[in-house]
């Protein structure tokens, strides 16, 4: 069942269009992340759902209840939407204790004070914050503040919880732990969550489905595996991972395959919807799919290794083939000079 439905949403700042017709559905118990570069409109979409931005066209429903309808000029104010929102900055109220921060939403819902006390304590205990109830936000670490912000958004059981870059305010090290912890929490509590992030690894780790936004429209959506392994556009392919780009010309197409030709090389790859025979094309392959081969063969090229970097768990090598730069990973070190690289035909997308 759809907890949240967004239909053809448009939003403009002055004359600058931010959202140009976005549609999406969030089902119960599902985590959807809004992914995209800065300026793509992902935060604006989240805020529009929360009632903090005013779209001018389209429709937003939470469960059965329509909260925005451009045609009917209907806009339910933020406070009447009953959503939970975790802010990027956490936005904890500095003059209220942790317990009062969490209790505020319940107080506004006219919950009896005895109930408030038990529910606040329960929410804090669930997030292992029980012992910090009487502290003020500035007395907490970044990770603790984040958990208070989540407790505050969850305590009144909103049907959907919105999270705006929930991990971006944490240190790099803490972020990975928090990511695992947050995914576990969401799954355990069976939350329906919409999460904004600009980090593709974070979005893949945390969500059941990803909506990739580009320039105010949804570029592609799907499960993390679909997004990573089967991108439909160059933008998606580029955004979802680390890639090698091979510019060339598409000379042949057959059975979902395309032959890409560059100066001195020919490679078969999978064609995409936009691929046209005879036109310029771009080959894309994930760094980790490029293999070092021991000699010439099908779909192999012979570039020159110029730089090698040790990354701890692997090596990264930079190759040059004419004007094109390629990068590849190996477990061990490589000698300088020419090497054969295999570009598996199933892993090369031709756009």
């Amino acid at each position, binding site marked *: 069942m759809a907890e949240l439905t967004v239909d053809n949403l448009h939003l403009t700042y002055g004359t600058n269009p931010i959202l140009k017709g976005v549609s999406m559905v969030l089902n119960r118990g599902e985590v959807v992340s809004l992914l995209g570069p800065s300026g793509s409109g992902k935060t604006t979409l989240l805020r529009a759902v*929360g009632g903090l931005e005013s779209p001018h066209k389209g429709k937003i429903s939470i469960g059965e209840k329509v909260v925005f309808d451009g045609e009917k000029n209907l806009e339910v104010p933020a*406070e009447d939407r*009953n959503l939970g*929102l975790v802010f990027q900055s956490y936005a904890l*109220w500095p*003059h209220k204790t942790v317990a009062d921060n969490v209790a*505020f939403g319940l107080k506004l*819902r006219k919950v009896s004070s005895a109930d408030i006390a038990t529910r606040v304590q329960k929410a804090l205990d669930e997030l292992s914050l029980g012992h910090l109830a009487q502290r003020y936000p500035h007395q907490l670490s970044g990770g603790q503040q984040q958990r208070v912000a989540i407790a505050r*958004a969850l305590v009144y059981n909103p049907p959907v919880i919105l999270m705006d870059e929930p991990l971006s305010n944490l240190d790099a090290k803490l972020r990975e732990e928090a990511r695992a912890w947050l995914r576990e929490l969401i799954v355990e509590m069976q939350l329906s969550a919409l999460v904004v992030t600009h980090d593709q690894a974070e979005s893949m780790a945390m969500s059941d489905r990803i909506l990739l936004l580009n320039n105010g429209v949804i570029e592609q959506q799907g499960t993390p595996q679909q997004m990573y392994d089967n991108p439909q556009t160059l933008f998606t392919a580029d955004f979802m991972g680390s890639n090698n780009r091979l510019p060339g010309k598409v000379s042949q197409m057959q059975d979902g395959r395309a032959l890409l030709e560059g100066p001195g090389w020919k490679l078969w790859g999978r064609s995409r919807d936009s691929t046209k025979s005879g036109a310029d094309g771009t080959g894309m392959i994930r760094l980790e799919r490029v293999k070092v081969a021991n000699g010439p063969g099908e779909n192999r090229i012979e570039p020159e290794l110029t730089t090698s970097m040790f990354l701890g768990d692997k090596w990264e090598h930079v190759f040059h083939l004419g004007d094109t730069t390629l990068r590849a990973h190996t477990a061990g070190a490589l000698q300088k000079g020419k090497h054969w690289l295999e570009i598996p035909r199933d892993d090369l997308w031709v756009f």
Partner: protein
Amino acid sequence: MATPAGALQRTASPLPAFATWRALTILVTATAVLGPLSLILYQSLLTAPFFDASKQLGFGAYDFIFRDPDFWKALRNSFLISTGMTIIAVPLGGLLAFVMERTDLPGKRWFEPFILVPSFVSPMVLSFGFVVAAGPVGFYTVWFQELFGVEQAPWGLYSITAMAVIAGLTHVPNVYVYATAALKNLGSDVEEAARVAGASPLRVALEVSLPLIMPSMLFSAVLVFFLGIELFGLPLVLGDPEGILVMATYLYKLTNKLGVPSYHLMAAVAVCIVAITFPLVLLQRRLLQGARKYATIKGKAGRMKELPLGKWAWPAAALLGLFVFVTVIVPISGIALRAFVTNWGFGVNLSEALTLESFRFVWHEPTHVRAIVNTVLIGVVGGALTVACYTAIGFANHRRNDGWTRFLDYLVLVPRAVPGLLAGLAFLWVFLFFPPLTPLRTTIFSVWLAYSVVWLAYGMRLISSSLMQVSPELEEAGRSVGATRGTISRQITLPLIRPGLLASWLLVFMIFEREYSTAVYLLAPGTEVIGAQLVSLWQGGAIDIVAALSLINIVLVGIGLGIALRFGVKLRD
């Protein structure tokens, strides 16, 4: 080779010029501030006026006023009114600041000058406006009675409650300016978080935004309470019919209590007032520093987004509209009408009663014309001189951190604690006490000097905020190429703060147009200014002339306000 080396040596040597000049500035300031005050203290310890041969040292004056039941009544009234107006002005000012600074109320920018008007119009004029607009036979009272066919309007102006309400309303701008400055530094995320949690805009204001600027609210509460103790024009006009006295009006009415000038009694009352106000000023200073610290802690707040009001736009607009109507439109339209009407009451048709009679009278009366000319002069020329003096003091303190800086910091605060009425009195005595100064007594110089000292703290805030905007690197760069402090001040800092000084001049102009109480005791042939003239005419009951002069005064302030708005001068910090 010799010339550049010599030149360098000259500029690098510690020239005494700046130090001498600084010492002189500090000395003059200290004399202007402390001289009159010590004279008040001295006079309060005499048993008769200082020029009286029979004077003796003693506590007779204190003894007399402490036995006077009117003194205690006045003290009680002052505290009642101060408390009442604080209770009204602080929440209202906070809410208006929230609406103006944080919400998306359409057309709100248009309202801002109106909210600030009460702080630019003389309280004497505003109170008079309330009398002619909403007093027993005021325009709005009569219209209300005719419209609803009632015998009596459901309000009255001549009670302590009414005075507290009117004083509360007219002091809303004092809260407003500090609250908006603090709200500016607040990130909108905390408000949005409350919104999403289910809070209406009113709840957001009361539970999140205003509590977060508590230090500033507390500061303005103390400020308003303090201004309540100082009140003079308002209780003079509104308290008179029922004989309600507050501290300042008690002092004013003491003048001839014993039949002869009772300077010693007035001085004793003055010392009592300062004993109440000075601790309040020190408290304000502490609170203001606290508020600034708080603001910088909050400073990291991210982008600002106006809170959408939705259906709450109506109550917000109503609050704003009602405030502006009651506090600004009613009194000022009352004066504007009254100035063109010489007889007004029930059954008078307004369109038939309109006349220029009052203005003609003002025009033919030399003292009134002189009052107008003097008021313009003291604002324009006097204002410029005052800003020049304040700037000199500002430079004496600029980027210095020694004992003298702290001394000057406190020194400029001292006049803040002295209500204008007392300062005027003190300067009157200075001019009488020191024979060399006596010839200046009947010149406008006496009024200018008193004004400049009374507004020292306000003016120094304007100047130092301009000076603070000059980045220290610009001055350090000057020093590194070999300029002396004096040269840097004249050739680098001063040109850079010129726009700030012009803005200060304009603000000082408006303040000087508005000022009235300081000139009350200095009023003499030759020193007339509109403000003091109004007090004297009001005492004499010349309502028509008071209305005409009040309107002229409002127009003068309005011109200043218009120029300020035209050139985008910030009317608040």
